[in-house]
């Protein structure tokens, strides 16, 4: 799992590469929260272009990220979701509360 971040004009982009499961999520959530606290973005974009695999650990992580952004009065966008992660997100129904695009 690789995390790349960039911050521009109030928008924090978090790009994930690799496979996201319970093993990877353990350390990753902490790191994502650190980045949020450091930049206090207005918008947060989770870029999943390079995320090849995700299980339900990813759902829990996205929900937590969404709550954090909500608490700060900001928005979360999940973008460039590949086919397998999209099936997992579809099954979870979180696209009803979070803006998710392929």
């Amino acid at each position, binding site marked *: 799992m690789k995390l790349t971040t960039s911050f521009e004009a109030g928008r924090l982009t978090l790009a994930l590469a690799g*496979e996201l*499961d*319970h*093993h990877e*999520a*353990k350390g990753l*959530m902490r790191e994502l929260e650190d980045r949020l606290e450091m930049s206090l973005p207005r918008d947060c974009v989770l870029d999943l272009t390079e995320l090849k*695999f995700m*299980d*339900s*650990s990813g*759902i*829990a*992580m996205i*929900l*937590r990220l969404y709550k954090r952004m909500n608490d700060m009065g900001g928005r979360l966008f999940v973008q460039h979701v590949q*086919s*397998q992660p999209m*099936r*997992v997100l579809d*099954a*979870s129904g979180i696209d009803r509360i979070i803006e998710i695009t392929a």
Partner: protein
Amino acid sequence: MKDLNSVRLEFPSLSANEGFARGAVACFAAQLDMTLTELGDVKTAVSEAVTNCIVHAYPDSIGTVYMRVRIVDPETLEIQIKDKGRGIEDVEKAREPLFTTGGDDRGGMGFTIMESFMDSVKVRSKVGAGTTVTMRKRVEKRLKQR
């Protein structure tokens, strides 16, 4: 009926083995004529079941996860994932979406994902003795392409 082919694996309940388990099943499943989507579904379900063993069956210790994968017929893959851990008190409740005993970092979606991605999911559990999850995936018949 005799299995067409099968494999057994056992490994300690270390989270680093989640990736190994789904990768191993995917390699074995390549013998069936699965689409990438079907293969992704199987990998996801395996990842959920193995994570359950690691997080819930053996919460404070390292136990053994037993996995058996078999080709039941040319269109059916069966995966059994078993632990000798804590067991589930109320299986019906554990299968409900969003129910979790795992805290904030777990979403309670594991069984929901297994059920929506596999054709059948059976759960047998006994408190103090362990849990066995048996899942089947049927391969959609397609015209053979040369």
